[in-house]
């Protein structure tokens, strides 16, 4: 029996065809965009690798579309094309900046693709994660602790530059446990808060008499997360992940409790932590100093940020064209600063397109969260997963644009980095499953 026949048999014909057609059209649109850019890049510097990357993308997109149609016929039709287009765009950028890394990224894309289907295909994984949340949390934190002992930085294997050692080496591949921990934490917190939220709300955060008496039920998790974040910051000097953990937690707690002053309280805690960290840690002091005035040390410690801003300026409105700018002046352009590299070659038009794509992805994710009526765990998981992507995107975009101090996080879907891509696609897989109402 054909896929359509199978779906007809399930009585999902009209809705299914709309989803399939929309997704197919969006994938074709994404393919057309990538085709034009691959062609442009080939004209600048002939490299058969780029066409292999494009062919791989087409295969992933085709297989993904067929499998999703089969398994999740009523899924959100926009998420998968968005994820694929952004990743494909990222591969073109990485190929242009560090050709040797692009092949790896395409392999990571395959792994991420498989992980996405693992989460989209069956509800078991998410259930298992929920059931064994404590075990997972302990494992995740242990893996994080392991990086403190045997962690390395692939860009600084000998530790000559004192770069944060956030990875564990597995042969020639490097895994970043803090990426997986994001997912584990969201599932853990969603699970905890899904159980606690009636009590949180009933206990009277909105009750004038008790609203300021934070119970251990609230205070406990806050302090726990704040503590975890500070440990990440102190031991790993990973400012980005620390802030990300705390912000995601804060959002989840706010959604669960409905208590708006929490956001103010959380912001104050971030500021206090920031002030303390400014006094205690060189890495934080450096980031804040160069955020306040990068021009004083444009050739020194602020070189990366200044070069990033120059890339935006050089890109202007229409950009220099793919392969025709000089974004390689920005250190680590293919990873944390990929947004600035993109700005130089695709200009403001490209930048706004990326912001729009990320925004649409987040909006669709939050829409999926709202569709989970009567399922608080699923709602909170969807919000938490979206929050990871939203805050990660905002932190790195704001950092390279000098809106906020720089935090070393990747731009979801675009930046080079296997662990990040796998987790991002795992999030996509979970959201796709939730969007189809299959939990």
């Amino acid at each position: 029996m054909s896929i359509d026949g199978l779906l007809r048999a399930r009585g999902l014909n009209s809705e299914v065809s709309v989803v399939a057609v929309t997704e197919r059209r969006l994938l074709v649109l994404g393919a057309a965009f990538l085709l034009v850019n691959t062609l442009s890049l080939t004209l600048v510097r002939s490299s058969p690798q780029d066409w292999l990357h494009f062919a791989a993308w087409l295969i992933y997109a085709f297989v993904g579309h067929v499998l999703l149609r089969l398994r999740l016929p009523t899924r959100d039709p926009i998420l998968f094309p968005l994820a694929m287009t952004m990743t494909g765009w990222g591969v073109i950028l990485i190929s242009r900046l560090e050709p040797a890394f692009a092949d790896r990224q395409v392999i990571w894309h395959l792994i991420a693709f498989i992980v996405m289907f693992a989460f989209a295909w069956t509800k078991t994984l998410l259930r298992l994660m929920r059931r064994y949340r404590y075990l997972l949390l302990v494992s995740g934190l242990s893996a994080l602790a392991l990086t403190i002992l045997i962690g390395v930085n692939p860009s600084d294997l000998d530790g000559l530059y004192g770069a944060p050692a956030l990875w564990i080496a597995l042969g020639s591949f490097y895994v970043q446990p803090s990426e997986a921990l994001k997912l584990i934490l969201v599932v853990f917190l969603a699970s905890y808060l899904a159980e606690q939220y009636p009590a949180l709300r009933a206990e009277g955060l909105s009750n004038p008499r008790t609203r300021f008496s934070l119970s251990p039920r609230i205070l406990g998790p806050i302090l726990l997360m704040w503590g975890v974040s500070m440990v990440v910051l102190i031991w790993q000097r990973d400012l980005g992940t620390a802030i990300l953990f705390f912000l995601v937690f804060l959002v989840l707690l706010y959604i669960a409790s409905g208590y708006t002053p929490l956001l103010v309280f959380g912001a104050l805690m971030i500021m206090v932590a920031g002030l303390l960290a400014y006094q205690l840690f060189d890495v934080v002091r450096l980031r804040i100093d160069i955020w306040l005035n990068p021009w004083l040390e444009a050739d020194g410690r602020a070189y990366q940020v200044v070069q990033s801003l120059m890339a935006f300026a050089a890109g202007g409105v229409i950009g220099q064209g793919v392969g025709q700018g000089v974004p390689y002046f920005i250190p680590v352009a293919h990873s944390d600063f990929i947004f600035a590299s993109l700005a130089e070659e695709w200009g403001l038009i490209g930048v706004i397109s990326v912001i729009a794509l990320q925004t649409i992805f987040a909006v669709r994710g939050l829409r999926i969260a709202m569709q989970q009526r009567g399922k608080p765990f699923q709602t909170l998981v969807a919000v938490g997963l979206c929050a990871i992507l939203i805050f990660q995107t905002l932190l790195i975009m704001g950092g390279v644009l000098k809106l906020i101090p720089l935090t070393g996080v990747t731009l979801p879907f675009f930046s080079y980095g296997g662990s990040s891509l796998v987790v991002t696609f795992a999030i996509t897989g979970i959201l796709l499953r939730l969007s189809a109402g299959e939990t």
Partner: protein
Amino acid sequence: MPFEREINRLLIGLLITFGVVALAAAYWAVAGADTILQRDDNPRRVLAEAAIGRGGIYDRNETLLVTSIPQQNGSVQREYRVPAAYSALGYYSFTYGVGGAEAAYNTILRGDDLSTSLSEIFTDQLLHRPQQGSDVQLTFDVNVQTTLADAMDGQRGAAILLSIPSGDVIGMLSLPTFDPNQLDATWEQLITDPGNPFFARALQGRYQPGAVLQTPLIAAALLVDQPIDDPLENAAAAYLLNELTLTCAVRLPDVSLTLREAYSFACPSAFAQLIESLEIDVVQATFDTFQIENIPVLEGFVAPLDAAAPTAIPFQWTTTNFRANALGQGDQTVTPLMMAMIAAAIVNDGNTPQPHALIGVRPPTSDVWQPIINARPTIPITTSGTARRLQDLMRGAVANGAAQNAGRPNLDIGGHAALAYSGDSTLAWFVGFATLGGSDALAIAVVLEDSDDPGLAADIGGAALEAAAHSARDRTVRSN
């Protein structure tokens, strides 16, 4: 739905924040872009600068002297093809900047002066075309340059040759010089070289004039009707000036000479006697009209450091410095260009044309040279009658005097070869002209440092005048 309100708020916050990010990106990409791109530490500026296709430099006969060779890395390498023209052309270095003619016409060569339409700017930026500059055609003649360079090989000094009545600088040489093709590799060595190879001696060299100032002195005598053919006792003898012994340009027996003969041999004693008989005001006025105090500038080229300085104290003639200055051994200094301009006035009825070195410009989009009109007026420095008498005196010096080596068959050459004393060393001068028929002529000044051989300076001058005359004749034949 318990969480709807909170999720909606989160959504609004998300949209606002992404909007702020987009605005920040728009600020850096549009509003703040110019400021940041103009920063000196913007490496993109360096790349764009290195990729500029500087125009070629041609001589007056359209011989290519300098060209730009594009490199694989997108930068452009400057190639200097004629060693004899190195000192006149100067240098372009991505690291060290520009000098000489490269500096004088930098704006044109870079293409900064080209007005481009908005659509052209848009197309250039879209296609990443590097900036292209115009070609320039200079007044230099590669044959004259080569003759000068060959004749002055091994010497230190300068020579400059002007075409009359146009004021074209036909040849210009300053020695020692450098190879601009090897500039980056030899820079450190060049800037510490005691010979100062970057110094444009022909334009900026402030030399002791010595007996070369006998030309304005004898002009002063002519103006006040002093006899120049009466014999003067001890005219050929050495002259002692403030513990400095001045001699004729060539060794002569101690005989009496007329002022005319003394001029031919550049003998100081006769002119010391002339100075005794002249009023200080007359000498000063003559020197003033000869523009001795005004350092001339070749248009576009770097001016001598103190030439245009408003605070420079005008030279004051006094009874104590009068004799030394009039004999060219005081504080007054001259440049080779200044002396060539005096020779130019003498052969041009007393009017000196203002020198220039640019004939035409050819934009990168055109095959046609656009001529540069030189509208600067000539400067009168003496009367036509005096100029003609000075011509005769100079012809006499070439026929029978110290400047004999300048003489060339079938060429009407006049000149004055003289010695000057500077510190412990001597300078050999030759200032002369050649007539080419009609109002066309050539004027030249040659100075050799650490040389007591004015005959060699005259020989160099004669060779250069002969080469320039041949070139001028060839050009006339070609144009006919």
